[in-house]
């Protein structure tokens, strides 16, 4: 390698300059991808908290800030990756470095996909659930009340709050059980309807098969009748010819009888004379 460089006649100064310029974008891209990975993990952990009792307005705010932060990191890393790609195209560098840059680009795309997936999940859960605003408001009002009245009533207030929350949870569980029972019963009815529709489908298929077979029978009947019609027509023509021949036979028979009569008459006259 070094001999080839000497033979090419390239100066060492430009070589070192290229190496110095080359390393900064690549390492910057690697560092950026690492930071995006960390931020996306944090984002996913926050998304998993949505829909739980910990879901508060503060959590939503933190989620929003994390999303913006990841967007900024993605923008910076994308610019650095483009810079590294330009250097790869313009300058002739080692193949191993090209492979390393390609790997970094692939990692970057994988991280982006993961972030988009987490973002979609966050959007779904943000619309499906609402943060526990009353829970945040009540303790503050109770705290103010406690501060005003004194410290002797705080255990009582706290016990009442816990009891109210427990009853609310029981009520919700009861409603959920009731709705699940109704849904299960409705599903059972719909299953029965589906089964009946399946049976009707089978009946329609059987009917189609029967009608198709009977179509073949009707074709047979049609061909039989057509053959009978043709044979009858031929027989009719044969009988017509026979009728003509019969008429000719009658004429010939009469003629023969007349001739015999005349001959007989002449013979009688000759014998009488």
């Amino acid at each position, binding site marked *: 390698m070094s001999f080839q460089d000497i033979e090419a006649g390239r100066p060492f100064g430009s070589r070192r300059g290229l190496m110095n310029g080359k390393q900064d974008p690549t390492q910057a891209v690697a560092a950026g991808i690492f930071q995006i990975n960390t931020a996306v993990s944090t984002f996913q952990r926050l998304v998993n908290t949505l829909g739980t009792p910990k879901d508060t307005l503060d959590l939503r705010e933190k989620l929003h800030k994390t999303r913006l932060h990841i967007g900024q990191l993605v923008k910076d890393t994308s610019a650095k990756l483009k810079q590294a790609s330009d250097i790869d195209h313009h300058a002739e560098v080692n193949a191993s470095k090209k492979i390393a840059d390609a790997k970094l680009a692939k990692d970057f795309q994988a991280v982006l996909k993961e972030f988009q997936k987490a973002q979609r999940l966050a959007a779904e859960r943000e619309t499906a659930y609402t943060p526990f605003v009353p829970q945040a408001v009540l303790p503050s009002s109770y705290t103010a009340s406690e501060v005003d009245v004194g410290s002797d009533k705080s255990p009582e207030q706290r016990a009442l709050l816990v009891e109210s929350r427990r009853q609310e949870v029981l*009520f919700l569980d*009861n*409603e959920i059980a*009731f709705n699940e*029972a*109704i849904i299960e*019963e*409705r599903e059972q*009815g*719909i299953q*029965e*309807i589906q089964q*009946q*529709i399946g*049976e*009707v489908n089978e*009946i*329609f298929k*059987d*009917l189609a098969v*029967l*009608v198709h*077979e*009977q179509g073949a*029978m*009707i074709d*047979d*009947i049609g061909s*039989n*009748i057509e*053959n*009978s019609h043709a*044979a*009858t027509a*031929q*027989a*009719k023509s*044969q*009988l017509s*010819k*026979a009728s003509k*021949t*019969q008429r*000719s*036979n009658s004429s*010939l*028979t009469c*003629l*023969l009888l007349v*001739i*015999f009569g005349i*001959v007989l008459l002449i013979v009688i006259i000759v014998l009488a004379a």
Partner: protein
Amino acid sequence: MGILYALVGRGSVVLAEFSGTTTNASAIARQILEKTPGNNDMHVSYSQDRYIFHVKRTDGLTVLCMADDTAGRRIPFAFLEDIHQKFVRTYGRAVHSAQPYGMNEEFSRILSQQMEYYSSDPNADRINRLKGEMSQVRNVMIENIDKVLDRGDRLELLVDKTANMQGNTFRFRKQARRFRSTVWWRNVKLTIALIVVLLVIVYVVLAFVCHGPALPSCF
């Protein structure tokens, strides 16, 4: 089968009730009213022997019914919803200050009608109505299958008959052709006979004219 007892109450006060059979449902219903304190909305079902008591409370008004365990939950709770709406629409805000059994004389008849409707009429539930319609469609299709099978049998008979007719017409054609041939040959025979007779007559006449059987004078 179906809903056997219904009751409308406020708190633990019974405003109207109706019982389709002679059971102790009334006593059990009162126990349930007393055992469910509070004013919050709820849906709940209690089972006792083979009957289930369905309770629905909305806006402080409690509607309760006892149903067979085969009736499920969808129809009884639809019944409770319907009774609640009818009751509120009929009496309005008066339910909060009514006396015990204050509406029983009028509303028990409505309870009876609705119990009969939700117990017997399949149209009370959309799924049951759809089930009934699908059963009708299936029955009609089964009848169609039977009719098509009968048609198939008759078509088979018709195939046999037309096959026989085809055979008969083929035989008819053969016999007609044979008859024509017979008549033609008879015609040929008569023609030949006529020619022979004419030749004999000519010979006899020539024999007389030429003075001998060997015709010596003419040749």
